[in-house]
């Protein structure tokens, strides 16, 4: 029996369910993650789904290397992480760059729109220019109406053009954590 993606509870945003469905339709079978509140629904869907591997990482760069290994073996991998963790990936991003391995990550932003924790601001401000310096394509989503088109574009660039792509989910869409 294939896994049925549940409907969102009443009042909850539907975009995490739609994004998960889209990734699975593309053939993604490996979801690695470092836990993050903004990605909680997607992480839990992958944990509940017997048709995919849901991989708890100790640091985000493991997901970059795992994605390359998955491609060697003919599978598609997506890394789910918070923007602060993207900084942990910098050296490992050399692997998909020089090997032309597909790399796709869904990144929940902290330290952008409306951030109330000053500790999150440094990486929030730095992460896009740092990733772009590493030749990673960054596609930012600020409104849930952009999720399907942006993630579709990201999957094509990663899995067909063998680029490294990060989809950055703004706090404008995710909501702002209160402190």
């Amino acid at each position: 029996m294939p896994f049925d993606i549940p409907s969102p509870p009443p009042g909850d945003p539907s975009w995490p369910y739609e994004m998960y469905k889209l990734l699975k339709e593309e053939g993604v079978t490996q979801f690695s993650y470092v836990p993050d509140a903004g990605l909680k629904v997607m992480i839990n869907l992958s944990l509940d789904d017997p048709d995919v591997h849901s991989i708890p990482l100790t640091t985000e760069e493991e997901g970059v290397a795992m994605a390359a290994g998955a491609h060697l073996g003919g599978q598609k991998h997506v890394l789910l992480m918070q923007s602060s963790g993207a900084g942990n990936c910098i050296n490992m991003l050399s692997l998909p760059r020089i090997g032309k391995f597909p790399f796709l990550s869904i990144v929940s932003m902290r330290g952008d729109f409306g951030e109330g924790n000053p500790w999150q601001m440094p990486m929030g401000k730095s992460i896009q220019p740092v990733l772009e310096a590493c030749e990673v394509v960054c596609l930012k989503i600020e409104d849930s109406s952009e999720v399907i088109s942006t993630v579709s574009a990201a999957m094509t660039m990663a899995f067909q053009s063998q680029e490294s792509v990060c989809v950055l989910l703004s706090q404008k869409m995710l909501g702002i954590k209160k402190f």
Partner: protein
Amino acid sequence: MSDFTLDRNVVLPLLIPNPHDFLIVTGLAGPARDIVHLCGPNSCNFYTMAGAMGGAVPMGLGLALAQPDKRVLVCTGDGELMMNVGSLAVVAAMNPMNFGIICVDNGHYGETGNQISHTGLGTDLAVMAAGAGIKQICTVFDESDIGDAADMIKVGNAAFFAHLKVHDGPPANVKRSLDANYTKTAFRKALLGIP
């Protein structure tokens, strides 16, 4: 001078007598040379790194999950593994039975001037692997340990960690491709039939 007597060039062929039965990902430096020498430089069943330090174990794990019917090895050094020692916990969490790590531990950073490494100063990677939750662990100190380790590498029902304590002599002197894209394409063509 280390207390260990095994020579990596002697012990690896005894541990992996049929290297083409495996898909192998290596860490940078010595273990990359070890495996290219073992398999033959024109073989397509290995992916060797020359950078991306700390990436060998997770890369091998991604491959093992994608290819459950193949036996997948990571061969890496103590320095490369220490760079991302948390990956042992990820392996334990997933526990693929077709996967294992061979750590060639010479207690030194052989590529950068032979500085003494953490394992040379007392860190025990087999204990760390056990602490991470890896179920099958074997340490090879001398010739008498090789048979059991070779059996564990060949077949098993859980992810394994083979800890190979060797002296700090050089790895095989072998030329290998440093072209990460070429090596990927050759590996995928051989395994999957597509570039």
